[in-house]
């Protein structure tokens, strides 16, 4: 065992934990009682039917195989492949998120550079920021009158705050020495912004962007449960209504994995812009 590297040991342990977890889960699902032992009361209340219980992992894995082997089928409004549903969700998240970035990054720069702008806008930010993004939903539905656009708006409004605040914080915190370097080299405002302030603030800004994409992915599930139609959130809710818990558990796992992938993309970006002093 001593010859294994730390990473290999950790990977081995992870796999073991997964297997043990699945085994415990599989064994803890109680077997259906045989019909013969039921009391009359149980028979009258439907106890004779197979009970809707939490499915064992073997069923979930079977479902996963079935879904992932044909992810893009489309058999009508209530029966679309998991790939299509995820695709809708990612499209909404990215659209709302990019719109938020287009607003938050320049605005954050202004707030970070000017203490007047900071003081003027801070009360609005502080009031708007703690509002649950879903609280905007009724207003968005009424004003925009389009459920698709409303979901995108909700993503926009929830992902704007961490980006805005982190950009402002990062820009305001750029070391004065570096700004002085720009000044003594007679760099104009635009060149200073792009060659000194942006790289100096980039780690903080990307951290904000990473927090934002995480929140956006959390919110899209809830938003799609409300607006319905398509998306992974709608899919979870729809399968709940169908009492198909196997699909519910499978889609929960998919939500987790896609969220992890989105986050690790920003992790890579974060590593690319990081610097040590």
């Amino acid at each position, binding site marked *: 065992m001593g010859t294994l590297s730390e990473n290999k040991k950790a990977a081995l342990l992870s796999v073991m934990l997964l297997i043990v977890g699945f085994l415990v889960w599989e064994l803890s699902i109680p077997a259906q009682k045989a019909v013969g032992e039921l009391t009359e009361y149980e028979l009258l209340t439907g106890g004779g039917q197979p009970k809707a219980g939490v499915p064992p992992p073997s069923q979930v894995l079977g479902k996963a195989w079935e879904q992932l082997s044909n992810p893009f089928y489309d058999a009508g409004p209530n029966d679309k492949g998991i790939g299509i549903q995820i695709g809708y969700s990612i499209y909404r998240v990215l659209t709302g998120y990019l719109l938020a970035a287009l607003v938050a990054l320049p605005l954050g720069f202004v707030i970070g550079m000017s203490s007047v702008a900071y003081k003027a806008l801070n009360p609005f930010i502080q009031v708007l920021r703690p509002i649950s993004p879903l609280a905007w939903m009724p207003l968005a539905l009424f004003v925009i009158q389009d459920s698709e656009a409303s979901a995108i708006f909700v993503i926009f409004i929830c992902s704007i705050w961490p980006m805005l605040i982190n950009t402002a914080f990062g820009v305001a915190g750029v070391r004065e020495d570096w700004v002085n370097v720009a000044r003594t080299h007679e760099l104009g405002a635009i060149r200073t912004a792009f060659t000194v302030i942006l790289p100096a603030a980039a780690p903080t800004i990307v951290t904000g962007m990473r927090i934002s994409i995480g929140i956006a992915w959390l919110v899209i599930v809830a938003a799609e449960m409300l607006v319905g139609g398509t998306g992974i959130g709608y899919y979870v809710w729809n399968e709940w209504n169908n009492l198909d818990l196997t699909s519910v558990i499978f889609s929960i796992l998919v939500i987790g994995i896609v969220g992890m992938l989105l986050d690790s993309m920003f992790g890579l970006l974060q590593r690319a812009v990081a610097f040590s*002093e």
Partner: protein
Amino acid sequence: MSKPFLSIEQLTQRYPDGQGGEFTVFENATFGIEKGEFVCILGHSGCGKSTIMNILAGLSEPTSGVVKMDGQHVSGPSLDRGVVFQNYSLLPWLSALKNVTFGVAARFPDWDKAKVVEHSTAFLAKVGLTGDTIHRKPSQLSGGMRQRVSIARAFANEPKLLLLDEPFGALDALTRGTIQEELIKVWKDTDQTVFMITHDIDEAILLADRILLMTNGPLAQVAENVEITIPRPRVRNDIVEHPNYYAIRNHLVHFLAKRSAELSGKSSDRNSPATVRFDLTGETATEDPETAPLLRAVQA
């Protein structure tokens, strides 16, 4: 006498003291620097050396007084005045070479990329940085190497005036010695005018043509102008043998240890610092006639 290349006239810096009054850091600082000269300024912390430096760099504005370079009024930062900051101020996300090309590209915007790189590499080589080292990030360099990059960046820009703010303050004595020698070499090769802040008397004697002495703040003054009458090239080990060395050194130590405090806070109406010149190379110590006002100032 014609105007010097750089002339600092009646420079005064006051800050509000937080109680409605004013706090004067230094007052009526007046001195000149000739082209190609290496001038050091010595004084205790708080006498406003760094403030003078920032004003010369154009990073801050004096309360009153003017700075003229080449007869032109100085205001705002400019590529004509390069600065080496105490904490290196390298941009940590750029490699050593990129930190230098950053400055060179700003200074010579019409140069093509190859020329910028060639020029920058040459100046990095002047301070002893060659090979793979120049592609490392500042965090992968030692303190001494970082300061070398910073010096290379400043010299590569070929400014009319180079300002060094305690460039060796954070370095150990051995590294300091090596870089001081490199600094002299680059300075000789490039005919730069250099104005440097330091705390280190020996460093000042080794490097400078003249040393300006400041009294303690508040109400600090540039009190004396000590000429370093030791011929160049100066080598650390040899200059201590020079007859003038200890005379100058003792004078500086005495000033910093005692007289900087005694003279502190006393307004003087003298327009320029008293010049002090030691020359013991002859049979007897020859006193420069200009030392006379100094003696009066001490008694005052």
